[in-house]
């Protein structure tokens, strides 16, 4: 039993820190730390720097541009990057479709798509959910009918995050209606510029445009855009979901958010004293910090187990639930900390370019909106209810 990093790991951490200090653009870091809005250009700029460093696609095989990071190194990167204000990687290309292509794609697909992900030519989005298929993903209805050398796709996807920026979408489509729901699904890569595709924004309750509906009307997709075998897409989707879940607990982001909250609470006053010194409020912060401490060790335990050759199983589902609850609790406290100033919706102050006077605190403006927006954490990536169903079946055998 040893909770400490090895000398090599510590050296790696130093390397990461030096890199972040030198290369992370200050304006991007300030946005991330203040939970301000990040533009597409911000993401692309940071991606370029990471690609140059060779760390953007760290988990890919070396031949395609990856490095052989251990799970612990990956964790060190996540922690340090969050702490320094590195923006969260938009996962759809590098972390989601790429692993599927690498594992199940043809050599041609690998040669074609992976470089374009690295160099930013392709910005991917995810076409999984449909209006009638949320938690029950396998009931999806978008049809792909094969006609010689292409498929004709018709249907609708929804909750497509950052779809407005994307030029590629990976989709689960139904290619067979004769078999059980999960057996007739295929995994298609679709160019968003193909005629027949329409993207319509979904505005969320905080006024944000982050997610979209994507409509397919007689969209022609070449058969070489099929990943793996026809009708076997569900297997690839499940593989991807496991991949996705590991990061969903968001421990690193929660640490950054907690630190941000404490800053806020040290400046906002109650009866003339900082909230951070108020008995009730400081205990609320203490409680969430304690819970985060525990979740962070749980996260390390999973990482260490993976490093030891294990597969992250239902523990990562439990951690996803706990981690998102913690993050939401932090958001809740940040909203409470600004008191009456949670009410004004001062959009201009959410941008880093704002140069006017702040209505209350420089970090106040996004807090209420973020509280509402992050209700999504317990819904997406498999809702927390679905995660509990998984644990109930997988670990408990219920």
């Amino acid at each position, binding site marked *: 039993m040893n909770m400490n990093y090895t000398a090599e790991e510590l050296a790696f951490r130093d390397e990461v820190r030096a890199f972040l200090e030198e290369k992370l653009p200050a304006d991007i870091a300030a946005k991330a730390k203040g939970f301000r809005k990040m533009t597409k250009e911000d993401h692309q700029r940071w991606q370029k720097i990471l690609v140059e460093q060779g760390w953007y696609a760290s988990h890919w095989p070396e031949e395609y541009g990856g490095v052989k990071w251990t799970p612990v190194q990956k964790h060190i990167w996540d922690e340090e990057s969050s702490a320094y204000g590195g923006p969260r990687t938009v996962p759809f290309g590098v972390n989601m479709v790429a692993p599927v292509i690498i594992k199940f794609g043809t050599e041609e697909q690998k040669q074609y798509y992976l470089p374009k992900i690295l160099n930013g030519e392709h910005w991917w989005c995810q076409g999984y*959910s449909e209006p*009638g*298929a*949320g*938690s*029950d993903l396998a*009931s999806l209805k978008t049809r792909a009918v094969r006609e010689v050398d292409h498929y004709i796709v018709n249907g609708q996807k*929804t*909750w497509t995050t950052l779809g407005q920026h994307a030029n590629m979408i990976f989709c689960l489509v139904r290619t067979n209606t004769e078999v059980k729901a999960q057996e007739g699904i295929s995994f298609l890569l679709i160019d968003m510029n193909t005629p027949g595709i329409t993207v319509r924004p*979904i*505005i*969320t*309750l*905080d*006024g944000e445009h982050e*997610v979209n509906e994507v409509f397919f009307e007689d969209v022609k997709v070449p058969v070489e855009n099929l990943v793996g075998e026809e009708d076997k897409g569900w297997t690839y989707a499940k593989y991807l979901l496991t991949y996705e879940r590991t990061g969903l607990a968001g421990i690193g982001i929660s640490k950054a958010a907690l630190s941000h909250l404490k800053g806020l609470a040290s400046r*906002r*006053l*109650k*009866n*003339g004293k900082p909230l951070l010194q108020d008995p*009730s*409020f400081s205990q*609320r912060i203490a409680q969430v910090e304690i819970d985060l401490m525990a979740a962070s060790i749980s996260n390390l335990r999973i990482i260490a187990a993976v490093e030891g050759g294990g597969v992250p199983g239902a523990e990562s589902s439990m951690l996803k639930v706990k981690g998102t609850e913690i993050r939401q609790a932090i958001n809740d406290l940040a*909203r*409470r900390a600004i*008191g*009456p*100033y*949670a*009410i*004004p*919706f*001062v959009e201009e102050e959410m941008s880093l370019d704002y140069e006017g006077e702040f*209505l*209350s605190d420089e970090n106040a403006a996004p807090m*209420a*909106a973020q*509280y*509402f*927006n992050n*209700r*999504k954490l*317990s*819904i*997406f990536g498999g*809702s*927390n*209810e679905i995660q*509990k169903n998984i644990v109930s079946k997988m670990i408990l055998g219920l």
Partner: protein
Amino acid sequence: MDFTLSEEQQMLQDTVARLVRGEYSFEKRLEFSETELGFSEDFWKQLGELGLTAVPFDEELGGFGGGGVEIQSVMTELGRGLCLEPFMQSVILGGGILSQAGNKDQQDKYLPGVASGELKVAVGLQEPQSYYNLNEVETKAEKSGEGYTLNGRKAVVIGGHCADLIIVSARTSGDVRDADGISLFAVDPSAEGVERRTYPTIDGAKGCDVFLNNVKVDADALLGEEGKAAEVIEYQTGRAIAALCAEAIGCMEEANELTLEYLKQRKQFGVPIGKFQVLQHRMVDMMSELEQARSMAILAASFADAEQSDERRRTLAAAKNVINRAGQFISEKGIQSHGGIGMTWEYSFAHYAKRLVMISHQLGDEDFHLERYASLLEAS
């Protein structure tokens, strides 16, 4: 003991309900919210014409001296429609302060307009650093000549952007958190030195921070006795709390109805999601929190116009604590039960959720009222 509304009260509530149903569809509400005014001028006029803005006032002002229960009837229905008009701010809080603290001349000057809806009042009691403590007043009112000079800033004045009159608290003596030494002033927003920074609110209304820079007011701008306003503020915000509780009940009832409807209609895994026991029990919990909240809103209404006492203080603190918690619970669980759709702008649920959570930021959140209650705790 009788928890049913009287015939008159029921008629009143039905009137508001009909009006809201007819004029305040969710789509229209979104439109009203996006106007510069931030609400419907027309709807506000109708409230006036139907005598609803006069409800709490005496007959000579067109009202019938409606108390907590009548206000509850009106506010519940306005809550149901997520109405954006400054009824609580102008009629209940503004009108209440003027009725309690204003002298004959001031009442004659302002109340007819308030009761008819022609004069919109906003009330600025908070300050940038006061959190929810309304006795924390840094804004200064210094005697100058016959009148006063006001300097300071009042925070998050809902409806202040379009008010014809802004009532502000300012300190005429005492230390920054003393109850003694606070006074109330009726300020003309167009007076020299009054600046407003206007903003939309996250729940769809509009408000502003009011900056007072050497604002000169006459002696007759002082409402009530100099330095003795803390009592008035406490009493009238108590009435406003009861009103907010009622509004929240309207919101929660609609929110729960939407969630219940969704559970019945939305299918996943081949069955309505309402067949899943976890969602069933959660819905029961949401109904149960609403029951608790409803009980406290009723209790708050019954104390709203009662004489001030520790029992009234305790009851109103308890009510706001329960309503804030229930509102947040119903909002968060309701969104969760809806899934993504519950978070979208174009579906009304999200707007109920936002209003409910923001109600908890008006006149004291859960912790504020819990501490207040604890400070008034009776021995066994």
